[in-house]
């Protein structure tokens, strides 16, 4: 940076602080917050606690936590929402989400959610699970919960590795992908193929809405938010399980920068796990939703 540029910055800073002083010292300051041209465009949802998260920089989890809590806030269902946290990186989800929550054993979140929802059928119940939790050790609970058509939302974070235990191979690890337990790349002749859970469970009559989204760019984030909003809203219909799979990035265990990891999703992950809706509610079902008098979100 040249000396000239530095001076310019200093000057500008000075100007700004002078302006600010002038404003606070004058009556104009009183009105500035009310001014039409200044309005809040973004803030933390009140359903998300104001604490530092333990997630690595650039990790998808924090963003998805926020999206779920935004949806809960927008639907006005904080009082009626009960979440179930997994074992994995999101094990502390209850430290961040300002709703009642239970922390389940590894893979058992949907069984725990079943216990809650069966006794509190009017509450909104969701689980938040990673790929090791949901697709490996918990695949039996996942399939049977959905097969019973439990009226809950399952949020499934698929980042193709075991994050918490530092990057071991997951059931969703891509063919050829290197992890700490597949150091030469996932050999499908030894370990089989990445499980496409959304496609698998969409075959079950108990699943009502199944979609796969991502959060690696703004457009994707907006779609994911909409999917979560829809899924929570559908819970009113009592028609079955809603399943939102989110392709997450794991920069630490993928050994990439956050930006590189976002690109990796577009370049590699979506080839195995194509984004988009896998199973949609029928028009009749949605008509019923509109009849309940509630607006469709977004």
């Amino acid at each position, binding site marked *: 940076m040249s000396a000239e540029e530095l001076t310019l910055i200093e000057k500008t800073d000075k100007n700004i602080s002078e302006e600010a002083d002038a404003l606070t010292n004058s009556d104009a300051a009183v009105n500035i917050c009310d001014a039409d041209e200044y309005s809040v465009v973004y803030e933390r949802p009140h359903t998300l606690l104001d604490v530092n998260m333990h997630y690595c920089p650039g990790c998808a989890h924090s963003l998805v936590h926020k999206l779920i809590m935004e949806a809960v806030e927008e639907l006005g269902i904080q009082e009626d929402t009960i979440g179930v946290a997994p074992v994995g990186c999101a094990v502390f989800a209850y430290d961040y989400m300002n709703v009642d*929550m*239970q922390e389940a054993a590894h893979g058992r979140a949907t069984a725990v959610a079943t*216990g809650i929802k069966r006794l509190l059928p009017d509450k909104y119940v969701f689980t938040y699970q990673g790929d090791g939790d949901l697709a490996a050790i918990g695949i039996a609970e996942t399939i049977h919960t959905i097969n019973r058509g439990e009226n809950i939302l399952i949020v499934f974070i698929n980042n193709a590795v075991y994050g918490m235990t530092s990057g071991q191979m997951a059931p969703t690890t891509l063919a050829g992908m290197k992890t700490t337990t597949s150091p030469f790349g996932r050999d499908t002749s030894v370990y089989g193929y990445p499980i496409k859970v959304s496609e698998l469970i969409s075959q079950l009559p108990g699943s009502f809405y199944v979609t796969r989204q991502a959060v690696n760019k703004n457009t994707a984030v907006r779609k994911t938010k909409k999917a979560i909003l829809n899924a929570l809203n559908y819970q009113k219909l009592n028609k079955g399980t809603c399943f939102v799979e989110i392709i997450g990035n794991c920069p630490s265990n993928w050994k990439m920068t956050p930006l590189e990891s976002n690109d990796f999703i577009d370049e590699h992950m979506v080839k195995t796990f194509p984004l988009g809706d896998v199973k949609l509610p029928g028009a009749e079902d949605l008509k019923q939703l509109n009849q309940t008098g509630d607006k469709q979100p977004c």
Partner: protein
Amino acid sequence: MKGNEALAEAAIQAGCDAYFGYPITPQSEVLEYLAREIPKYSTKEHIRVVLQAESEIASINMVYGAAGAGFRVMTSSSSPGISLMQEGISYIAGAELPCLIVNVNRAGPGLGTIQPGQGDYFQATKGGGHGDYKLIVLAPSSVQEMADFVFLGFDLADKYRNPVMILSDGAIGQMMEKVTFGKYNVHKTEKPWATTGKPESRGRNYITSLHIQPEKLEVHNLKLIEKYKEIEKNEVRYEEIMTEDAEYIFVAYGLSARICHKAAIIAREKGIKAGMFRPVTLFPFPSKRLNELAETAKLFLTAELNSGQMVEDVRLAVNGKVNVEFYGRLGGMVPNPEEIVNKLENLISKENVS
């Protein structure tokens, strides 16, 4: 009624909100009875649930969820199924969730057999799953107690925020006896910690067994230990038969206690001053009373349907004051009272020789 059916009926009368289970012999009647009966009691105002899960693992985790939401919940199984539940039971103990778990013990190890056994004594009383924790363990020895201990078990679970296990066996579960149901008022326990949805008036509730910082987990561990001490202080239960002047005391629980009761009568007829001591709570174990009896008795004979498990606790209780001998049958084989009397007579004659 069959023992298992009496237990199931008691669950309904005790206000059990939900039962989650998976079929396994010799306790499937519990699930069958409740699948038939619970729906009759379920109303919109008071939802009552019976659900056959895909496994014992799922069952116990459904129990976790429903208990965490503040409901009166139970499951039942038999030995191999209870082994599958151990992870969940450890979480439930760690998260301090009240619930009732029934083990209709069969003989093992492994798939073993469907005949009665008491080989799960260690598993029930010494933790069973990982980590330091205790269940309150009740051991019925009649069909009447299969029913009675459901009411007691639910109340103790709520009182101490602790899982309670009824440790029965294949014989007590399957046998038919008369059973009477008294009037029971469901004790409603306030559960302000339950996850029922967070109103504005309170902070969020969360159920967890995770305390990642060692100094915090230790505090939690110590709190649990304090609770177990309190339980040991207040909840010891046992039964004594002809122990006032007994020189020889059978120590047995559950099915073995029924056999030893008869053995004590036969021994008395033969002029041997025998009695029986039956622990009703296996945790808390009635150590103090056993220690007192050891002041006057000459010999304790512990009889179990295993290779010698409770006998260790009896020895710890008497702390060398008196000789504690053991008689056990295995593999689902059940001894008759005469066998046990013979064992006692042999021991007495050896005692006299030495």
